[in-house]
């Protein structure tokens, strides 16, 4: 499952522009992920300039 560190995230929206599934979206001052649509392609994680995105293996398994 994709994990967003809201403390680190600066809400730049870069990951939103890259997400092929449109799972990520910026709401008011907050990045959110629709986990039902996310395929864990990890593109957003590898892009994030501040490293605010990660994956939670325990939940994914």
């Amino acid at each position: 499952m994709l994990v967003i560190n809201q403390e680190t995230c600066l809400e730049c929206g870069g990951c939103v522009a890259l997400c092929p599934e449109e799972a990520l979206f910026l709401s008011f001052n907050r990045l959110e992920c629709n986990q039902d649509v996310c395929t864990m392609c990890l593109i957003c994680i590898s892009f994030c300039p501040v490293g605010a995105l990660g994956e939670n293996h325990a939940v994914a398994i």
Partner: protein
Amino acid sequence: MRSQYDAVVIGAGPAGSTAAYEIASAGFSVLLLEKHSRPGFPLSCAEAVSIGAVASLPEMREEWISTRIKRACLVGPNQCRITVNRKNAGYILDRPRFDFALAERARAAGADLVCNAIGRDLTRPDRLFASVDVLLESGETVPVEAKVFIAADGVESQIARTAGMTNLCNRDEVFAAAQYRVEEIDIESDVMTFYVGRKIAPGGYVWVFPKSDRSANIGIGITGKTLRGGDAVRMLNRFLRTWYPGGKIGSRSCGLVPTFQGTGTFRLHNILAVGDAARAIDSFSGAGIGHALSSGKHAGRAAAAYISGEITDIGELDSLYPGRYFDERLEELKLYARLRRAYLRFTDGDFNDIVYILRDYFDGRSADNIHVGTLIVHLIKTRPRLLKFIRYVL
């Protein structure tokens, strides 16, 4: 906010506010939506513009300018540097004030500016889009009808993508960028400095843009397949430890800098995308404000022509937008996209060579009226092995 307008513009950055101004000036009703509590906030921009980029504005107010740039400095991987003089090269803006003023200009012309509001889903009952759901901070969603929609919501481009516009960015082509406002440093306020090299900023560069003689926007843009999350910030921190160890970090920002993707991302039925949302950007330097102003202006005028009935078939809009914008900027967009392809292949040895050659070339010579083509020819004449990069530029 009414339930019906001639046009709805989503995003009150330079592109959206300029489009809204053009539509309102033509006498049509326009709703300008801004997600944040006010336009120009928060900052996610290095704030540099060339004089040419803002030439379309009727005035350039003193309060929008932080510093005036008269020199540019390039620092190679082995710390060799070249500084060139250029009279009136450009400005480092105060983007919060600049953006706010552009939104106010749209409002003074008659646009309805609504902040804390996000344009979400567009409905398309027929051939054209008919309304947009406006999400307010209260959680309430209000549908607003219009004849034309302008997507100006930045790189995330949520409104255009949700509507089906194919402008997904490719991870290997975009820049991952991070920037700090660094205070309490000694800096020359009329020089913009670029640091290049594969180790310092793979595929991109570090910029130091002075905000005063004691502060600067210091940032990094990097690109490539091997990058990992957090690399931009890690490399920026490393740069600061080396070059500005005593600097105090103020505000932080980050972002994605898109690359120009060619045609096909500017219009879908009656939605026109502008600025970063359309990937209207110089892919080499990442400069986007000039493209935002130009694309916003032409999209706004095209929208007005359609609303007025001057153009009846929506397909004919292309000649006005992106047509007129392309007339103004397409050659430049293509040139910088090609320069970027060559740049990505430079080794640190190439970067050092280029800095040395340019230093000899510009010794005592001003950079006024120098064309990039002239420099390319000079570089290849001096160092024929650089010829191997020419196929990426042509």
